[in-house]
Every structure is written in structure tokens, then in C-alpha cells.
């Protein structure tokens, strides 16, 4: 009997068990070692990222720890289907009036978030010696999210190493948002639905926003996710078209 293929066959259930253990360890670290200074969910997510790094080192694959056969269930449980399904389910606690009240700020933050990210990406690209509009637009798009980067890069015909760079930028953004949101939330008054919607629109990276807010206060997740969910789609629309043409006109 091959024990690894047994766990692979029961991948989803195996990952439930492992995640439960990760949550347990994280909760213990949070209460016993850190006296609840950092929430258990933030530590659990951080442990997940460390596992992902370790998995990448071992296999050289793209799916973190999920590339190991024993952890293959993580691909399903941690994939976009389960993530989005859980985000939608949190909507049951959403207050409609509050959402409408934050509507205007939400839209402004969304537009500002898209433009600022693109410009910052281009500035960093210039500083690192890229001068053609295609590469710069791709790096700028990667600064939005790790999905907008490759979509823009392939639409504009950027080289594959620039596309990889843009994906890496988006992943770094998601990770930095995940780790630092719970630590900085109090300082930027990220403690109510209104600012959570603004936060989602400015950061945009659904995985980072969702994970960061989950580690801060689970009640804020639906509000942040609501604006962030439009970010990637709008980014894919604007980066290879309006933003790219504006950049080309300026150069």
C-alpha cells in the first residue's frame, strides 16, 4: 500500500486535518507566547506562507506546499472556488445602509487605487532601468495584482521575464498586505465597515485584502472584499488600454 497516494486520494479531507492542526498551533502561539498581541488567525496565515515558501524550495513549483503530493488537497481548499464561496457567505452579516453610505468613498478609493498602483509600478520600473512602454505597463499592472500583470503583459506582447517580474510584484504585494494589515489596522483606523471598503478599493489584491482583514476582524471581510472584487476586473480592462495609451502618449 502506498501511503502517499492514500493521502493524495483523500486530499481535501487531509488538508482539513492539517489546517486544523495549523490553526491549533497558531492559537497556542498567540495565547501562550504573545499574550494575544497578534491574533491567532494572523499567525496561522503566516505559517501558511512559510509552508508555501518551503514547498516552493522543495519542488520548484508554482503552488507552494500544494505541489507536494501529501498536501495536494490545498490546491482545492485554498483555490479560488472555496475562497470566493466563503467570501460570498460572509455577506449574510452585511448591513445594506452602511454599504450605501460608504459607496462614494468606495468608488473613489477604487479609482485612486488603480491609478496610484500603476504609477508607482512605472516609477519603480524606470528606476530599475526599463524604458519601453510595454515593459513599464506590465510592471505597473503587476503592482495592481498578480493577475492583472500577466494579462496586460501578454496583451501588449511583453517579454516573459518581465511578465514573471510582474507576477512576483503582485505576490509580494499580497503577502505584505496579509502580514502587515493586522499590525497596522489600529493606526489607520481600519476598524469599521466604511474604512474596510476604502481599504479593499485601494489595495485591490483580493487574496491579500481578504487574508489581512480576516486576521484583523472577520466582520470586516465582506466590506473589503466587496470593493476588492471589482479591482482586478477593472485593472484588466484599463491597464492594456487606457493606462497603456496614456503612458505611451507621455513618453
Amino acid at each position, binding site marked *: 500500500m502506498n501511503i502517499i497516494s492514500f493521502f493524495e486520494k483523500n486530499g481535501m479531507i487531509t488538508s482539513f486535518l492539517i489546517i486544523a492542526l495549523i490553526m491549533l498551533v497558531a492559537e497556542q502561539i498567540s495565547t501562550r507566547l504573545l499574550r494575544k498581541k497578534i491574533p491567532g488567525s494572523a499567525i496561522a496565515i503566516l505559517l501558511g506562507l512559510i509552508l508555501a515558501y518551503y514547498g516552493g524550495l522543495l519542488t520548484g513549483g*508554482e503552488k507552494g*506546499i500544494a505541489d507536494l503530493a501529501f498536501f495536494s488537497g490545498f490546491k482545492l481548499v485554498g483555490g479560488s472556488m472555496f475562497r470566493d464561496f466563503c467570501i460570498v457567505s460572509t455577506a449574510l452579516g452585511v448591513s445594506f445602509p452602511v454599504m450605501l453610505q460608504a459607496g462614494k468613498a468606495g468608488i473613489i478609493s477604487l479609482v485612486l487605487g488603480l491609478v496610484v498602483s500603476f504609477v508607482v509600478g512605472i516609477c519603480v520600473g524606470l528606476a530599475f532601468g526599463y524604458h519601453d512602454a510595454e515593459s513599464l505597463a506590465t510592471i505597473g499592472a503587476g*503592482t495592481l495584482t498578480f493577475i492583472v500583470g500577466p*494579462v496586460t503583459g501578454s496583451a501588449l506582447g511583453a517579454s516573459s521575464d518581465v511578465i514573471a517580474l510582474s507576477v512576483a*510584484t503582485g505576490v*509580494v504585494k499580497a503577502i505584505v498586505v496579509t502580514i502587515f494589515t493586522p499590525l497596522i489596522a489600529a493606526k489607520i483606523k481600519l476598524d469599521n465597515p466604511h*474604512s474596510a471598503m*476604502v481599504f479593499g478599493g485601494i489595495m485591490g489584491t483580493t487574496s491579500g485584502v481578504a487574508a489581512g482583514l480576516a486576521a484583523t476582524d472577520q466582520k470586516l471581510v465582506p466590506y473589503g472584499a466587496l470593493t476588492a472584487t471589482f479591482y*482586478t*476586473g477593472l485593472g484588466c480592462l484599463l491597464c492594456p488600454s487606457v493606462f497603456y495609451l496614456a503612458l505611451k502618449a507621455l513618453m
Partner: protein
Amino acid sequence: MLIYGLGLLAFSYIAGQLFGDFLGELIGVQANVGGVGFAMLLLVLLHNYFQKKQWVKANFDEGIGFWSNMYVPVIVAMSASQNALLAFNKGVLPIVAGTLIVIIGFLLVPIISKIKTTP
């Protein structure tokens, strides 16, 4: 019945995501535009309607509540399947750009949060 709640959640998810994909196709991008957002709106509206009709009985809500409690564990699984190696092995540019934009974002949040729509 628990499965009715789950069914309503599944219906909202599918309808929202389908609409998001359709919208993406319509405006010519290779991505889902706001699918999750539309699904959330649909769930809130339908759940309200179901409550008015008094169809929300017994453990209907538990079929939905289970999944919102599974949220953090699913996010842990998601973090564990990220391409974290690529993020840190691709040189300095991704780290500089990815960190800089988050710092700027954190600075912008309290400023934009001041904008409120007067009811």
C-alpha cells in the same frame, strides 16, 4: 433545512460569478468583473426576501454560517499554496514595488475614509 440555506448560497455564487464572467466577456477582458460582489448582493437581497416570506426556518442559516466560519482556514490553505518562492527570488524590483505600494496604500486609507456620503 440546512441544505436549503446552502442551496441559496450556491445559487447566489453561481449566478454572480456567471454574470461577472459575462460582463468580462462583454467589455473584452480575460477576467471576472465583480462576480463575487454581485453574488454577495444577490445573497443579501434573496435572504431578505426569503425572511419576509417566512421561508427561513430552523437551521437554514447554518448552511451559510458554516462557510463564513470556514473563511480563515480556507485563507490559510490559500496562503500555503501561493508562489512565495517566486515572490522573493525574482530580485529586488518586486520587493521594492510590492512593498512601496502597500505603504502608500496604508497612508491613503485614513485620508479617503474621511469621505462620507451624507444620508
